[in-house]
């Protein structure tokens, strides 16, 4: 597959991420910040997000323990998570976090548990899609380097 095919594939992948509601326009803001000085900025920030989120998930899980749920702590963890979610434009994950916060405010443990599972699923799907997308971008980079004329 040549560079132009790979680029078309990447563009199509990105379009799907937006069309299917995985990402919102905040992702474009991240792309705008990427340049020659920070050529991998978007991937770096998204990687940070997925690294942070595993820690935040375990905090949320702790707060949701059936014997003694701590809704105040839970609210604090969700709030913390929402900041990062918004910053990368992870729309579906953000929507689930909004629902989770509403259940948390009502102290509805069942609702919290179900919504948290859904949030984790959306998060996992997004991670896979972003991994695939960045892998393709790296392939494009490698293909472009290979075809660059040696001066």
């Amino acid at each position, binding site marked *: 597959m040549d560079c132009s095919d790979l680029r078309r594939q990447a563009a199509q992948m990105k379009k799907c991420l937006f069309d299917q509601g995985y990402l919102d326009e905040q992702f474009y803001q*991240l792309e705008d910040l990427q340049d020659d000085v920070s050529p991998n*900025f978007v991937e770096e920030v998204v990687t940070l997000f997925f690294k*942070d989120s595993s820690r935040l998930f375990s905090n949320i899980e702790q707060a949701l323990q059936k014997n003694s749920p701590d809704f105040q702590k839970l609210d*604090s963890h969700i*709030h913390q998570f929402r*900041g990062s979610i*918004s910053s990368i434009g992870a729309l579906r994950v953000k929507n689930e976090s909004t629902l989770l916060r509403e259940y948390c405010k009502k102290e509805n443990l069942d609702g919290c548990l179900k919504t948290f599972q859904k949030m984790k699923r959306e998060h996992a799907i997004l991670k896979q899609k972003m991994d695939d997308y960045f892998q393709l971008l790296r392939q494009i980079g490698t293909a472009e380097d290979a075809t660059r004329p040696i001066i």
Partner: protein
Amino acid sequence: MAAAGGGEGERVMHVLAVDDSSVDRAVIARLLRNFKHRVTTVESGVQALEMLGLEPNVNMIITDYWMPEMTGFELLKRIKESKDLKRIPVVIMSSENVPTRISMCMKEGAEDFILKPVQQSDVSRVCSRIMR
């Protein structure tokens, strides 16, 4: 207030960015560096005060509101109570649009309040005002 530096005619600030989210620290630092400012990032209000104790010559502080241990509001209060630090403009960021929170911060001496996710236009506006 702004230190001279960068290109010809460019004014460069040293900005201290405070946020417990590594994602948001990366984004705000990138936004500020886009405008050629020098950025130091820390993850808490406590670390911010430690850093300011060692290097008080910061031109602007931009801090998240909601942080564990010390909120951005508490950090703002500590800065405005300090004779060495009170001159430093403090900008608060929050992902929630809570009017009472905003007016509380402005009353306490915040320079501006930015809603997250922070945009280039927010940083441009705030930095231009402070450098005037």
